[in-house]
Structure formats: C-alpha cells, structure tokens
C-alpha cells in the first residue's frame, strides 16, 4: 500500500520499509527542541532517567524565548536551570538573550532543520518545520527528556488529509489568511491525530515565509504535523541557511488519504479569527465595526522579515490610531538586524509603534503587552483562547500582518485595501 510523505519519513526513521496508519513505532530523531518553559520540566525528567549524558550534543536545541529577557525571578530561575544543564551537557545549540529568537523562526533561519528530518519539540508549534519538508511535531517535556536521552520517540503513524492548492494569492493576502481559512473549514479538531499534506500547483507559488506560517498553525486544526512537498524554493532556502543535505521524500502515487481538501488560493480573502477559537473565521464582508486597544505584529507565526515588510508598507507615512498600543516584535536577532537595515524599525517607531527585542511575550500572555479586562487585540499570533493575552475577559482576534497593520492605522479591525486605497 502506498505511503504518504509523512509515513515515508517515519518509516525511514523507524528503520523499516513500510508503516501503516495506526501503527506504533519507535523512531530515531534528528533534533530535539525545548524552550524556557518546557525544558525545566524535561530536565527534571531527564535526571530521573539516570541517563548521565544526552544522546548527541549537536542534536539538541534549547531556546530561551517565552519569558526572555527574564520577566521575573521565577522566569530567571527557569532559564538558569536550562543554561546550567546545557553547559554541563555541552549542548552546542543553546540560545539565550542576545542570540535568541522565537524558536520556530530561529531553527529554520539557523539551518538547524533540513528536508527529510524527524524533529520533536516540547512546544506545540514545532510543526512549523513541515514547511521545509521535515516531519516535525510538538510533544511534552517527558518526550523531550526521553528524546534527549535516547534520541528516539514513540509515534502512532498518522493518516493524512491532502490539501491540494491551486491558483495564486492576491495582493495583501498571505499564508496566514490561507491557514485561517483552512482552520475555519476544518475546525479546531478537524485534523486531529492526522497529517496535513500540502501539494498542488498553487503550493509551489507560496513563499517559504508563507509556508512556515501555514505549517506553524497546522496544530490549530489539531494536526500532528503539516508538511509541504520539497521544491526549488525549499532547496534554495535550505542552501541559503546552511542546512544539512536534504533527503527528499515524496508521497506514493497510491498513498491513501482520508480526505482531500481543494483550495483555490486566488479566491482567499483577508481572514480574521474571532474569539475564542481559531476556527471562528470571518472575512471583511462579515466584519462590522470592531474597535481595538492593541495590535501585536510578531510571534513564530508572523514575526519574519516578510511580515514586517508588509506591515511597514502599510504603516509608512501613516500614524497609529490614538489610544491603540501597537507592538512590533521581530522574531529573531537576524530579523531585527535586517529590519533595521531596511529602515523598517524607523517606520514603525515613527508611526507610533513599540519595537521590542525578540520574545514570545504577549503571544501567550507572558508579558510585554498584556490585556486588561474588556480590552481587545488584533494580533498576528496563532491562538485566541480565553485569557491567551491576559485577562480572561479580554478578546484576541487573529489576523495577518497586513490586517494588523491596517487596523493599527484605523483603530478598528480593517482590511489592508481599505487603508491603502484611502
């Protein structure tokens, strides 16, 4: 029986010719990832294992990104625990304030993942690296600990949904609108336990930035992973970022999919997910007057240079609406530097926005932009659950960088076209 792309990568990492959906396997790992919240729990579990050394000092990555620079004493203690562990274990890829970035923006940028890899991360958005043609999935801290010790993890082989993309995106429509549209169709558990495999002529028109954004939010449909076919765009990206030699896996022509979803990219419009689930999507014909108190442009979903460029294009020469706090967070130090050299940071500051050092910060309601009761934010992040950005009675609307920037100008949720044509 034919295998999907994900199943082929898993079979190769389990050392077998064939796997089937539902089968439990033990697979070897190319990378094990953790952050400042999940790693301390993993380190404690690792100590319980009695494994004196990690399986490979080059294949573990720890990124201090959620509450870094340390937001309080407890956060500082957690980072210290990670730092001490990495020093003691001689882990090469440890990223702290000054070198860090939001993990899922950082790893592709630093060339730490390549096509054909199997990656686990103790962070749910580890599925981001599917954009590079890797199998990557979020796990918990115990899995991370065991991965660090033995370089393996157990998986139930997933079945898959094929997402066949055609057409090409219109101006001011991006990967974020595509994935919000898909989650709106599938629902937040529509892909539960399954892979989302992206294919079709339209897929090849998407930039790597759009693909990373789409794969990032596969988890918001419940998926185990989201994965893109490898093409020239992938190979060029991997080469430019110094990634290891890619291993290209293609789905068999007779691979079995549970479902195929066909999506015409040219028909997708700017899309906003309303509180309190990413599936509550609406397009501007259904969105009335919704004033906002805060706009956030950043996160592992939309904190890349391309995201900042589109936001800057809209904010250039315009001012952020009175009484709206606009917070821009480049996702990595490199992006920060690039944005500075391109003059984007100046545009943001001149428009009345705050520019922050890379951090997850407000995305998970950590710090750097917490909402009060009754406040509302439109944000380029990926979750709008109750209390996600602060008070349980605050509201989070998810959107693209273009919509977020347009909303910053008007002070209410607005389409980029409205602002650019005004």
């Amino acid at each position, binding site marked *: 029986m034919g295998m999907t792309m994900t199943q082929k990568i898993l079979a190769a990492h389990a050392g077998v010719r064939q796997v089937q959906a539902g089968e439990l396997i033990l697979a070897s790992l190319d990378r094990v990832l953790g952050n400042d919240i999940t790693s301390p729990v993993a380190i404690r579990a690792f100590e319980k*294992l009695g494994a004196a050394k990690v399986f490979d000092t080059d294949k573990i990555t720890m990124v201090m990104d959620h*509450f870094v620079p340390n937001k309080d004493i407890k956060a500082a203690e*957690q980072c210290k625990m990670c730092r001490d562990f990495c020093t003691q274990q001689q882990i090469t890829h440890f990223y702290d304030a000054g070198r860090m970035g939001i993990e899922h923006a950082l790893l592709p940028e630093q060339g730490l993942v390549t096509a054909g890899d199997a990656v686990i991360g103790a962070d749910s958005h580890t599925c981001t690296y599917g954009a590079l043609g890797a199998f990557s999935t979020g796990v918990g801290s115990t899995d991370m600990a065991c991965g660090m010790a*033995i370089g393996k993890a*157990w998986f139930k082989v997933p079945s898959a949904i094929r997402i066949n993309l055609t057409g090409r995106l219109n101006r001011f429509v991006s990967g974020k609108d595509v994935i919000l549209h898909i989650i709106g169709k599938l629902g937040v558990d529509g892909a*539960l336990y399954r892979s989302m495999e992206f294919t079709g002529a339209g897929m090849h028109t998407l930039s790597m930035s759009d693909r990373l954004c789409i794969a990032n939010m596969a988890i918001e449909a419940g998926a185990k992973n989201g994965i893109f076919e490898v093409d020239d765009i992938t190979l060029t990206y991997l080469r430019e970022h110094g990634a290891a030699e890619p291993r290209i896996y293609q789905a068999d022509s007779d691979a079995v999919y549970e479902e195929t979803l066909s999506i015409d990219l040219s028909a997708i419009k700017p899309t906003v997910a309303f509180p309190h689930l990413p599936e509550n999507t609406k397009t501007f014909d259904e969105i009335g007057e919704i004033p906002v108190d805060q706009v956030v442009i950043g996160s592992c979903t939309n904190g890349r240079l391309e995201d900042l460029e589109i936001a800057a294009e809209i904010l250039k020469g315009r001012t952020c609406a009175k009484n709206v706090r606009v917070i821009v967070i480049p996702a990595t130090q490199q992006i920060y530097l690039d944005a500075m050299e391109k003059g984007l940071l100046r545009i943001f500051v001149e428009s009345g926005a705050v520019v922050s050092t890379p951090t997850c910060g407000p995305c998970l*309601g950590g710090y750097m932009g917490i909402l009060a009761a009754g406040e509302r934010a439109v944000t380029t992040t990926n979750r709008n*659950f109750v*209390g*996600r950005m602060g008070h349980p009675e605050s509201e989070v609307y998810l959107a693209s960088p273009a919509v977020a920037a347009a909303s910053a100008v008007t002070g209410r949720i607005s389409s980029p076209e409205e602002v650019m044509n005004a």
Partner: protein
Amino acid sequence: MKYEGNVIRYGDNVDTDVIIPARYLNTSDPKELAAHCMEDLDAGFAGRVQAGDILVAGQNFGCGSSREHAPIAIKASGVSLVIAASFARIFYRNAINIGLAIVECPEAAAAISDGDRVETDLDRGILHDLTTGAEFRTAPFPAFVQQIIENGGLTAAIAKGVIQ
C-alpha cells in the same frame, strides 16, 4: 486500572490555556500549578475538587500548547481520571507519559452529568455511571501504551530498560 469518583463536567475544546494559564508557567511545581488549575474556565475548581474526582469533557480536550504543566496540574489537583469524547494529541501523549489516566469514550462523555458517581474498569474497557445506571464500553489501550503506563510512565519505562 479501576477508578471511582464524582464527576466534574466541562464542554468541548477545553484548552491548555484555561487548564493552566501561561501566567503561572514560571513554575513547574505540581502543587502551585494545581492551585490555579482550570482557573480561567471555572475559578471555583481548585477549591471544590476532591481527591479521586473524575473529569468528564467533550471533544478535543487539552487542545493548544504542549505544556506538560496541564496534565501535571490536573493530576496534582487530585483528579484520578479524565474521560472525554476526544483528546488533543499532545495532551493525550503527555498524560500517558506522566501517568495521568485518560480514556476516550464519546458515548460516556455525552451521557454522564456533573455530580454523577462513576466507576471504571479500564482493563476491561467498562465505564459505569452509578447514578444513572448507564454502562459504556471503550477499547483498551494499545499494548505499547499499556507497557508505558504499567511501568509507571515513559521515564520509568526507559530507566528500567523496557524501552531503549
């Protein structure tokens, strides 16, 4: 695996942000986490939950982040078992890995009410609502997963050399 307890019931898509809000993730101490368990969904939970209680919920329980703090908080609050129509996958594996008993049973999740007393025998795949008398069947865990649970979680299974 036998459990008996009183039911606390919630709806669909109970996410990890309400199970344990991120503002408390600057610690991983189970007791501290338990004190804030379910806080943004049901502020009275931590004060009301009794050792042995059973959580019952709808679809996609535990969706959202990979924070193991979520099953840790539930376990440390005294909950003995979570029954749901379905679980988000990372939560599912985290619960197994730390040894929090969970069972997927859409029929039971739909029929059991808040405050009911429920008895389960998971080895035989039986759930029994003692209040209404209704009985439900589930599939037993796959052998590999049972091996992890029987050995006291994934770390213990590896420490004992059962998995290598």
